[in-house]
């Protein structure tokens, strides 16, 4: 999968992987992160 130039929503979860970490990975793959958030269901 080529993420270069793709717009990405990075949606993390507190009990899983944080949105900021997902966004950093997406950016390193060449994607443009248009929304980044971390949900918490506690």
């Amino acid at each position, binding site marked *: *999968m080529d993420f270069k130039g793709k717009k990405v929503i990075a*949606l993390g979860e507190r009990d899983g992987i944080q949105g900021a*970490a997902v966004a950093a990975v997406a950016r390193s*793959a060449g994607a443009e992160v248009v929304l980044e958030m971390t949900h918490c269901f506690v």
Partner: protein
Amino acid sequence: MILGTPSAESSKLYAVTVSEGDPAWAGALAGVPLNIPAFHVLEPDVKDAADEAVYDTEIGISAMALEPETEEIIESLTEVRNGVTA
């Protein structure tokens, strides 16, 4: 969409919601198929596309913690992308 969800169930719920619409028919996306493909950050496709150093720094420890769930998570998202949501 790239997810960082901790279980197969939550991953599938997000993936179905942004591809076919809210499966619970409770929210604003009920009956609204956005057709946005959902991937998990632990999927090999995502890992291979990312910078290795960034991936290890940001995801490394979490990937180990989620290791028991990883296979199920990937399976659930692959099913949704292939149109299997039942």
